[in-house]
């Protein structure tokens, strides 16, 4: 019985499977290769040593200019910090003007009025009193002419 089973198993295990389609190799490896490159780039960016090397490659062409710019920014920040008013802000109390100030202001207004003289209404500001005449009168005038 066991021998028969073994023979049967042997017969089955000798049956070959279809081969993988040949064109799949390049297609699958191309997709996997792309993923591999993308993943590799992502990991390189994450590594600190790589980050430093990329930064240095960006800054390398004009290191003095970048250093100068950094120094200027540090100076601006330092000046801004030192000139900042650190005193607590207290709300100022509003005081009504004194009677002397009011009297002084009225005198100035009077003097100004005397200098300017009485206010005249300009011709252009005057409202036009010309109302449109009735249509029948106009027609009459036109027929007369």
């Amino acid at each position: 019985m066991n021998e028969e089973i073994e023979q049967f198993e042997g017969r089955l295990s000798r049956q070959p499977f279809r081969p993988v389609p040949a064109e799949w190799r390049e297609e699958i490896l191309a997709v996997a290769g792309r993923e591999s490159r993308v993943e590799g780039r992502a990991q390189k960016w994450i590594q600190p040593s790589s980050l430093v090397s990329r930064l240095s490659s960006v800054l390398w062409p004009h290191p003095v200019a970048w250093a100068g710019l950094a120094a200027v920014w540090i100076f601006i920040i330092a000046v801004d910090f030192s000139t900042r008013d650190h005193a607590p802000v207290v709300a100022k109390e509003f005081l009504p003007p004194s009677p002397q100030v009011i009297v002084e202001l009225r005198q100035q207004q009077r003097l100004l009025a005397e200098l300017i003289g009485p206010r005249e209404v300009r011709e252009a500001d005057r409202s036009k009193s010309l109302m449109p005449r009735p249509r029948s009168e106009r027609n009459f005038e036109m027929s007369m002419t």
Partner: protein
Amino acid sequence: MRREPELRRLYDEHAQALYAFLINCTRDESDTRDLLQEIFVKLARDPELLNAIRNERSFLIRLAHNAVIDLIRRRGTRERTRENFAAEAISPFAPAHDPDEQTFRAELSRALAGLPPDQRAVVHLKLWEGLTFEQIADVLDIPPNTAASRYRYGLDKLREYLRPLYEEMKRAE
């Protein structure tokens, strides 16, 4: 890039075995291609996956098995029912020149398609990958006794289905 030669090596050494396992499980060439690609994309994304692995083949078949399970879950019951009839559409076996042998392969393909996926996976790994029950248990994440019993049930069904043809062929030999 160092990873790409490594992927090529893995493909050349294991793609045929993975293909056989996947086509036997899915019975669909398009699904098999997608799953095979999925496995290699996974390896490309995470090259550390194989670092601590003793048996590459077992590990890759485990990935393939997980991919098949995910596919079946995604597809749902409707597709699982379709799978039972898929044996008519594609045979996982290579065509044979001898007509008797061709008939036997076609019948074997149908018999395998009739097995539940769990039994089919165990039968495949035992017969065509030559794994021990311990190794199968490790790959499929099941106890060794379960692997052994699934194999026994699966093989019995195959024998039952193929008995008339098998005995006829034996007599002819």
